[in-house]
């Protein structure tokens, strides 16, 4: 079982890397073409447009404007997810940098918020009469992260695996010197589901900041289309 999971981990990582690389190449090519296409008439981003874009990326400002009910869940989910990821880095790094130790407590709290935020998003998406559409791929991803994060909470609170074994197993994969799988069925399921998640991560979303910046520039310039400066 351990060997299968180790092989699957390499496979998942390679698939993720290829997808990420493919999107990065599209991104780079597109940005280059956009730069070459710039003319004297091209609207330069104002400080306001830049600031609004930062708000859009970090606080999901656009979502807040159109759906505050969903925004609460989405923002808590993404912040919690980030903190939980940072907390998990203690299992991937040796020695562990002090900044990673600092996020252990916030990451732990976020770990409890994460499944609740996901359950909230799924409830809003699937049960609210206002919502007209739920992408099957998105629902699957959210449900997957819900199961993974719930297992994490259960492991932390009730059936804690041996963290030394977990760290040796993870570092073994990273250093290509495989170690044995920790003796915890919950950990095996948790880890397997993460391997399913990794290739499905929506890497194309990294395009969003440029699109958001273009949108803010466009909105700022709309008034100038038919009005004097």
């Amino acid at each position, binding site marked *: 079982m351990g060997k299968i999971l180790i092989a699957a981990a390499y496979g998942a990582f390679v698939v993720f890397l290829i997808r990420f690389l*493919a999107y990065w190449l*599209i991104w780079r090519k597109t940005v280059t073409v956009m730069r070459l296409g710039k003319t004297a008439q091209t609207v330069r981003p104002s400080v306001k447009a830049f600031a609004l874009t930062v708000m859009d990326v970090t606080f999901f400002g656009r979502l807040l404007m*159109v*759906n505050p009910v969903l925004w609460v869940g989405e923002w808590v989910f993404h912040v919690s997810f980030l903190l939980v990821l940072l907390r998990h880095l203690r299992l991937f790094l040796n020695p562990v940098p002090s900044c990673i130790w600092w996020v252990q407590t916030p990451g732990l709290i976020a770990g409890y918020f994460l499944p609740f935020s996901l359950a909230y998003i799924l409830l809003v998406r699937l049960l609210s009469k206002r*919502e007209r*559409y739920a992408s099957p791929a998105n629902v699957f991803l959210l449900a997957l992260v819900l199961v993974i994060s719930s297992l994490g909470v259960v492991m932390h609170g009730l059936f804690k695996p041996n963290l030394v074994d977990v760290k040796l197993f993870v570092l073994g994969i990273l250093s290509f010197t495989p170690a044995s799988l920790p003796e915890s069925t919950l950990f095996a399921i948790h880890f397997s589901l993460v391997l399913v998640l990794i290739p499905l991560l929506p890497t194309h979303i990294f*395009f*969003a900041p440029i*699109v958001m910046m273009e949108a803010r520039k466009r909105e700022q310039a709309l008034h100038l*289309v038919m009005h004097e400066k």
Partner: protein
Amino acid sequence: MKNKRSFTQELLPQQILEIGACTQCGECLKHCPVQDVTGNPSVSPPEKIRMFREFISSTEGLKSRIFGSRDVDQKLLDDFTRAVYECTTCGACGQNCPVGIFTQRLWPALRKEMVKHGLGPIGVQANMPKAIMHSGNPYDKPASERYRPWFPERVKVVDRSEIAYYAGCTGAYEAEPMVRGDVLVLDAIGEPFTMLPPEEEVCCGFPLFITGQHDQLQDLITRLVQGYEARGVKVLICSCPCCVNIMTRDWPLFYRKPLPFTIRHITQYVSDAISAGKLRFRKELRETVIYHDPCYLSRGVGVIEEPRNVLRSIPGLTLLEFERHGPNSRCCGSGGAARKVFHENAIAMGRLTIDEAVAKKADRLILSCPACYAKVNESMMGHKNQIRITDIMELTSSMIESDWP
């Protein structure tokens, strides 16, 4: 049908990023007029983007680069083509997109891709290039009938002027009270204006642009620009939002240099004339009216305040707003040439506009787009709710003098 050709050749770089950046969140569906009347998520913006991503993946994805392009599933192509042409291209989805995708420009670009693949346009939209080639307008009506039925005899048009008026095909053939109002108001302002002869005032190109059929655009636009330039025009006035949109955003691209004149929507010109005291209202209107923002005027080019300024200047008039107004306005159903094929959708959308205006207890529904004017009037036929529909310049012209023929 084999379709291995790239699906991104007609797209701008930022549009390729936009297709990638869609999170499929579905917020746009709440603002989509097609969803309002069909409730069919398979023709929704995120589904269109999901399908188009599959086309790109099949022809340009990593797997296709290594193992060669795959044929795109024909049913998926057909479903996408229908969905992208059922859209009214109003852009409300993009206005409310949490990522900020500029859908008012993206959908026409995707339509252009489908035309290049031999899949679009659909239905009678395909007849437009031939009609425009034959008679200069998409309705295939004779040029001799372009001005004659509605142009007031008392209004004088000069040969050369710095100000020109473009009536537009839909206004001239489908919304005569509107264009008649336009020229009456221009005449009342008193600045001499010119117009191209009817056989020279050809289609602005918008119906072709919006359906993805770009072949004739450069020729049409060049003819029009050169025609106005030869008359010494410095300001071109037009009341049709679709014409105004393509004139400001795309004419310079097809003309391949900056236009020798500026474009003004008629409400901008009239609003300025009222402010400058060149136009005075002689009558009072004790009515409550509601103004509908055309998508291509408000979201498209940001002309939002001027129509309201004109209406608020009419003595006695009370102005109401739709729930969704300004850049958030709801499509009346006539956008994107979809009305030519999906007629029932367009009628149902028009009725939603009428119903809201009636529910708000407006005495009159004010429009400022010939396509809206024609379609909302048509939508009212046989409908339980009835309201008086008036174009903004039709109303303005009736308020400035009382003894016109």
